[in-house]
């Protein structure tokens, strides 16, 4: 039986996307390989750092390159911002330049490990949501913060699977499950995924989408890897729709332990 409660399209705000794979655009060896990977992935939503917008050198302007792909929605991100004030200002610039209502709030005051600052992220997200942005905050896998951000009007939450670029996979899986259980907005795993099987697992566990960058960009063949991730995300979603067999903690005894119940003698 098909699980009728699983929507076919990814919906964020009033926007609908046929792919549940979102791509990051950093770290590619060249612009062409980034574009090839995006096309191969079938994604309709990509994130791009505002700091990589380069209006004065069009050949190095990721925004200009991405604008050549039809049907692609851009989600600019504030990577590089170290506090809420900078992120809000960057969001304003991004809306002006790209016209996109989406903003991925990414605030990491420590430029080494790039872990998101919950306090500044909350503050920037609250302000930007009140200004009508579709806010997609990148956060640690913290169920309380996720609900706080939902209450503040965010369009989704994007907990990390593990540290950016670490390729450690879903080390925060149990916390992400809690976030999914409680959330009324899409939960999208962002950061740390290394292989398609991990993306598949994230979708199977109930994430509405996954965001992948490093795993595709630094692959020997980014285009092929993008295809692999697309297939894995589709498989995970199909499995969820089909209804994944519940996991049992122990074997079921062939001689029932409770067969004595209701017997007269």
């Amino acid at each position, binding site marked *: 039986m098909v699980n009728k409660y699983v929507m076919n399209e990814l919906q964020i705000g009033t926007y609908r996307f046929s792919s549940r794979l979102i791509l990051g655009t*950093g770290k590619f*060896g060249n612009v062409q390989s980034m574009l090839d990977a995006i096309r191969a992935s079938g994604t309709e939503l990509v994130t791009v750092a505002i*700091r990589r917008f380069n209006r004065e050198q069009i050949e190095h302007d990721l925004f200009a390159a991405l604008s050549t792909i039809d049907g692609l929605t851009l989600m600019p991100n504030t990577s590089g911002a170290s506090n809420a004030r900078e992120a809000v200002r*960057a969001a304003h610039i991004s809306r002006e330049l790209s016209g996109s209502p989406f903003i991925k709030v990414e605030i990491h005051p420590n*430029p*080494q*490990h790039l872990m998101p600052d919950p306090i500044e992220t909350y503050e920037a997200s609250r302000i930007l949501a009140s200004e009508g942005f579709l806010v997609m905050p990148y956060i640690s896998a913290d169920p309380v913060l996720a609900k706080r951000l939902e209450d503040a009007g965010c369009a989704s939450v994007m907990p990390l699977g593990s540290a950016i670029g670490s390729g450690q996979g879903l080390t925060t899986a149990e916390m992400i499950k809690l976030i999914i259980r409680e959330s009324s907005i899409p939960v999208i795993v962002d950061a740390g995924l290394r292989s398609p099987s991990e993306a598949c697992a994230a979708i199977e566990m109930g994430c509405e989408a996954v965001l992948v960058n490093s795993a595709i960009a*630094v692959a020997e063949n980014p285009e092929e890897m993008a295809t692999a991730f697309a297939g894995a995300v589709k498989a995970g979603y199909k499995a969820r729709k089909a209804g994944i067999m519940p996991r049992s903690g122990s074997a079921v005894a062939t001689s029932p332990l409770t067969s004595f119940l209701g017997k007269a003698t």
Partner: protein
Amino acid sequence: MNGLPDWLTNEKGSDDIAPLLINGSSFPLEFLAAEARAITLRRFGRTMSLYAPLYLSNVCSSGCAYCGYASDRKTIRRHLDFTEVERELSGMKAMGISDVLLLTGERTAEVNFDYLRRCVDIAAAMMPRVSVEAFPMSVNEYAALADCGCTGITIYQETYDPEQYRILHRWGAKQNFLDRLEIPERALQAGIKTIGIGALLGLSDPVEEALKLLRHVRHLGKTYWKAGLSVSFPRIRPQTGGFQPAFHVTDHFLARMIFAFRIGMPDVELVLSTRESPALRDGMAGLAITRMSIASRTTVGGYVEPENSQQGQFEVYDDRSAEEFCSALQAKNIEPVFKNWEPVYNGPSTENNIS
């Protein structure tokens, strides 16, 4: 020398990396290169961020024995006026540069804080990212530079060997080893976002220099959790005055040191300038280095006005044009990134919340 801080002298701060660096290390260079490459690829991807230096002045009051701009060198002394600064920056912009490092010598009557601040003002209006490598400043002065849009400060200890330091800094404001050691912290206290440190390799025992530099960068990271950290690996180059370094730092040791730093500090920006040969720079790109200077001039100005007989601070080894250098990176499937910053991220990092 008395009064050296514990973080500098305590070998525990580098004992994980020391085995990779010591003479006769059992770790093969190829093994370190592979490790470094994997870390760099994961963390930084297939990209190289690019910057270029602009020497504002070669006027200097110091007597650093290894420097082509030391006050006893017979070099024509000059500094750029503000119109020239603007013109040079326009020339750099036309080459695609979006990330500039402004350099001066020691503070003098003309090339003083007000001069430098004005130059940062001009540069920040034209370039997304501006850093400064100049004379030491007070916390208030660094804060004022951050306010004007200065993102980073580069300041080398030159050597972590106090005795060599004393001998090499023959006169001038730079003579005090411990004072110099404190300067990066002063900049970070002022809200400067990124600090670049390094040792001028060849001035003392390279293994000791490497380990102390590693302890320094780790100390800064622990003490200032928001600090962006970068490490440079400048080797002594031929320069006016004919200084001969006491230690020869081989290509192999330099590579070993850079790989060890990548392994020991996976997230830190590692920088290699045009002091090094095209072959070495191209080879290190993609293995561990994530930031490089490009098309550099080490004379005062030099991007718009052709370099004349004026001597640079040191001889540039990799003198390829921006286009040539980018082609070499692209041939290795590495994307040259000119702009990797947005001016809205400028301003002191001490200012946190929006309210």
